[in-house]
């Protein structure tokens, strides 16, 4: 029965992927593969953040709710006190 906030996950995940995608490249050691590793970090951050963002935005304002069988509702109400 916990109300999920919207702002908190946004802040957490944006900072997380932002650190990986924007701050991470500065810490990659110099070497022949530096460019590739930086590309990989940024691409990973963008892809994963975008995917997570789509998932949470899609559930922000649901226009319809889940349809449950009456058996399920019984089970939940009367078995699990």
């Amino acid at each position, binding site marked *: *029965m*916990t*109300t*999920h*906030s*919207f702002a*908190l*996950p946004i802040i957490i995940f944006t900072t997380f992927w932002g650190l990986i995608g924007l701050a991470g490249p500065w810490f990659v050691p110099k070497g*022949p*593969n*530096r*460019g*590739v590793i930086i*590309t*990989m970090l940024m*691409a*990973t951050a963008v*892809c*994963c953040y*975008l*995917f*997570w963002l*789509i*998932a*949470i*935005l*899609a*559930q*922000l*304002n*649901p*226009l*319809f*709710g*889940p*349809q*449950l*069988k*009456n*058996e*399920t*509702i*019984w*089970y*939940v*109400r*009367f*078995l*699990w*006190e």
Partner: protein
Amino acid sequence: MGSMFRSEEVVLVQLFLPTAAAYACVSQLGELGLVEFRDLNESVSAFQRRFTVDIRRCEELEKTFTFLEEQVRRAGLALPPPEGRLPAPPPRDLLRIQEETERLAQELRDVQGNHQALRTQLHQLQLHSAVLQQNHGPPPAAAHTDGPSSERTPLLPPRQGPHQDLRVNFVAGAVEPRKAAALERLLWRACRGFLIASFREADRQLEDPLTGEPVTWMTFLISYWGEQIGQKIRKITDCFHCYIFPFLEEEAARHGTLQQLQQQSQELQEVLRETEGFLSQVLGQVQQLLPRGLVQVHKMKAVYLALNQCSVSSTHKCLVAEAWCATQDLPALQQALRESSSEAGVSAVAHRISSRDMPPTLIRTNRFTASFQSIVDAYGVGCYQEVNPAPYTIITFPFLFAVMFGDVGHGLLMFLFALAMVLAENRPAVRTAQNEIWQTFFGGRYLLLLMGLFSIYTGFIYNECFSRATTIFPSGWSVAAMANQSGWSDAFLSHHPLLTLDPNVTGVFLGPYPFGIDPLVPSLFCVPGTGDSQHLPGWACHHHQVWSLATNHLSFLNSFKMKMSVILGVTHMAFGVLLGVFNHVHFRQGHRLLLETMPELIFLLGLFGYLVFLVIYKWLCVTVTHAASAPSILIHFINMFLFSSSPTNQPLYSGQEVVQHALVVLALAMVPVLLLGTPLYLLHRWQRSRHSPRPAVGQQDNNEDKARCVDSSDAYEKGWSSDEEKARCPGGEEEAEFVASEVLMHQAIHTIEFCLGCISNTASYLRLWALSLAHAQLSEVLWAMVMRVGLRMCGEVGVVSVVLVLVFAAFAVMTVAILLVMEGLSAFLHALRLHWVEFQNKFYAGTGYKLSPFTFAIQDE
């Protein structure tokens, strides 16, 4: 950016190799593997080239090597791998190697011939002894008399009656067992009444000299009378290829012969042993010589083939070669040439020359990036110095695969399998495995690793683990609140099999699930106890958890996944168009930035970027209070193109119609810009350069050269780096034709492809939705039909557990076969298609060729 961003700079070098040192120089270059030789003698046939004789000799040597290898293999010995680095031997050594090899081959042939002859002889002797030893029972003629008889009794009373001249003769021999019956039949038919034949199997098996297999021979003893019969019998036995041996009547004589034979065979066996010893000695020598020789001769032949591609300079003092070499490797090349030609008085030199041909593409990869580069190269090797899609593919390919495959459990299995391969990659057993399917999987181990990793992530977001949802956080939907506020009594519930939670009711929807899709497990802390103990349906007594997915779960998921596919698709394609910017900047085609990239971006983002905007706007701003009258994006989008409106569809925001009309008009206006912009600009430039007075050669700027060479259809194929431009003499290219129709045609095709492609490619990304749906459903079905059956069983713990083991075995096998292998391959293929077609056709030409340096490396493995 690392060297994977675009191809390295590759230049054409001209090598001057003094004749004396040419072989050594090329051999050294082969060891280093730096340059790709160009064939300067293309017009010359293979027989007329300079070093054909040497190549012939090498090939003959190779034939001898093959023969020796065959002999070693037949003897059951293995060839040890060559140790150390073996450079190509100088030409004068070829003669020595040839002589040695010939000698060994001849010796081997002789010894083997002798060996074979001895064995055949031994076989004969053994057969003879077997025949003599064979006891064929009492002499056949004695069977006619009743009562006991002894060998001493003459067969017929002598000199009695008219048949006194008849004498019994014997023929003894051996025949192959399968022919024995036929022989017996034929003898009976031909000579019956005049002979008595007795066939017996030999006591021991003898080794056949040719095949080495043990064979049981049939020995026979034929007693006959009459000369003609004797001749007939001889002819028949000749036909059947039998061995005939003299058979003496007296026992003692036979004994004597037998002893002689045994003595002879013993001597022969000793000689045979000696011969075998010598044979193994020779084979040992071959074993030592062969591995080195093979490598050396192979390298020598490769060097001569490369030398054949060089042309001879007019003074016949040196060979001239042209080769492609990476600019980075030029110092190493020059050093190698200096070192190899230090013995000869003159040193070999290399210097750069300009070329009109497109250089080969060289992208250096390590074992991690190699598999991704090979995926890109499978579609087409990039043109020289165009942007390489591979570094982005390292992440986007596993990501798009994971979007279609998303399941934590399956992703974890794939990840662990790939991890096992990666950790074991240095073991020699793993590397030298010959199985092709294993080699394919092993070559893509890093690919599988990343694919598995991303699948675990998307599996968490989809909230699927072997099709079961996990509740990391409590669900955001409360059944209790709905039940309480809607008055769901038991009677009400029994009349309505399906009920929907309405998010409009306060307390039912408690916020979006923070990480992924809500598992929809109704909250546990629901009801202030009503206490009625109801008779619950029978399945409630089973001890498994209820993951109660709503029956309309798919309605929500489909909407979510479709919109996700469109958003990811538009993003991916816009990224592709942006990558084209790097190409235009590098090849100094700034006009294409304004006349192609800009219209393309406006078209794509104005139409499909706007669609993405609509989707996100609706997610953010249309709350549940307006759920009944929620606007439909699809109808808005269709009306946008048709310039019409539906009265029942509410606008999303004020001024929406104006904005949409403006965007469509803008996008349509971009089409003629895209179609005519570049051709008109190029035409204008060409006309300007034609009419303007020609300045001195050195002052023509590079753009002019570029303009002339971008005339033909594949524009930037010819636009390589500016260094090459400076080196070229511009005077020769002034007469390049600007064929307006060709340029227009090319641009028209490009425009149509892009505009129509925008729509079809965006729709193509919907396969992300389709495949992820298929995977989720297959996974669900497998669980429901297989595993749940096992988990639902009621009964004795022992029986149930055994059945559960079998059920789990079936579940595991089908998971791996159907969901991992089949679905994995399917998602792999579709992700590949999305990259090759939808992403790469925005910026990638892929019509180049790879730099394949002259190297001996292949045979060293």
